[in-house]
């Protein structure tokens, strides 16, 4: 049987959604047999592959780099899944949205620092004005809210997806 090419991506989130993904006990073995993990924090690939069946995104879109990533992901993925409240609603990363990025960075890296004061400028992507949910930037095919979504919900989603079905989440998940 042809394996599902699966990518996972970690944007502005805490990695809790990826932890929850790994927390589904033996179900993960059954799913592992059906998928090829072609990109993500769990594998070595540096470049986002050209053709992906399912991409799971954790985290809000918060920086210039995130923005470019999700656009590439959308172009190259058949199905995009927003996993967790940060990807679905902006959640905690969005709590900075009332403060202009420059003010925010100065508060933390200048006013709030004892040593090495100064806003980091090299090697880090610029922050967007606001952290936004993935669907405010590209089309999302499936939303899985939760902070993090429970492992059983993710297991259900993946099991359905590898069978070529779109999971019906309805009341199985909640925000928070």
């Amino acid at each position, binding site marked *: 049987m042809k394996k599902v090419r699966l990518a996972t991506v970690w944007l502005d989130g805490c990695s809790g959604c990826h932890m929850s993904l790994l927390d589904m006990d033996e179900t993960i073995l059954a799913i592992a047999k059906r998928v090829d993990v072609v990109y993500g924090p769990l594998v070595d690939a540096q470049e986002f592959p050209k053709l992906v069946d399912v991409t799971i995104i954790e985290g809000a879109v918060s920086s210039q780099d995130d923005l470019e990533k999700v656009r590439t992901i959308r172009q190259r993925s058949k199905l995009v899944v927003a996993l967790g409240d940060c990807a679905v609603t902006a959640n905690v990363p969005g709590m900075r949205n009332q403060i202009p990025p420059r003010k925010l960075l100065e508060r933390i890296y200048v006013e709030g620092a004892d040593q090495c004061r100064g806003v980091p400028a090299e090697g880090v992507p610029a922050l967007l004005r606001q952290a936004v949910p993935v669907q405010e930037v590209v089309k999302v095919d499936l*939303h899985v809210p939760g902070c993090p979504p429970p492992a059983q919900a993710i297991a259900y989603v993946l099991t359905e997806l590898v069978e070529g079905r779109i999971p019906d989440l309805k009341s199985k998940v909640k925000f928070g």
Partner: protein
Amino acid sequence: MPEKVSIRIDGEYVAAHEGQTILEVARAGGKYIPTLCWLEGISSVGACRLCIVEVSGVGRLLPACTTPVQDGMSVTTQSEKLQHYRRIALEFLFAERNHQCAVCVSNNHCELQAMAQRLGVTSVRYPYAFPKLPVDLSHPRYVLDHNRCILCTRCVRVCAEVEGAHVWDVGGRGTRSLIVCDMNRPWGDAVNCTNCGKCVQVCPTGALAEKGFAVEEMVKHDRNITRLAARRGGPA
């Protein structure tokens, strides 16, 4: 005695009497209609629009909590169309303010969050407003966090109708509307507030909470308010 009327709810004939609302009659018959701003024991205002129903011959959807029954009325409480508009009404509530359930005092005890799950809302199709809103910490025992407020006005009504203090009102217009204390002063400076906590107990969200509670710890007891109101003879 109020005059008896007969109406149909989802095809079934039910007896009612004049002066009752569609919601009252439906609930008495064991029918569930989603509600957020409505609370048994205080007056109904039709603020949230979750309880919309279809009434035959009426071209628009009507809130069940404020629409009085009329003889011969035929009401539909569940349909694709209603589900669609109820979800939209709920999504607006989320998009208008800042809700981060994961770090909210009311997480897992919140009527707004539970309603999203009940209606199968897993995302909000509109861009979030991310408004900049204050948190009033001036009261010695309670907090008002406008970020979580859905402007249901339960607090306004319970304080005026049950406690008789009328501390709260709605100030501003449209998306700038806010719950205000007295003539817009910090809650801690309110002259009438008796510190009874009724507003906190009826608030369906984490907008009103007791101080000293951490994430997920604020559990409300609005049934107590309903019982109290019933003993006093219902809404004013």
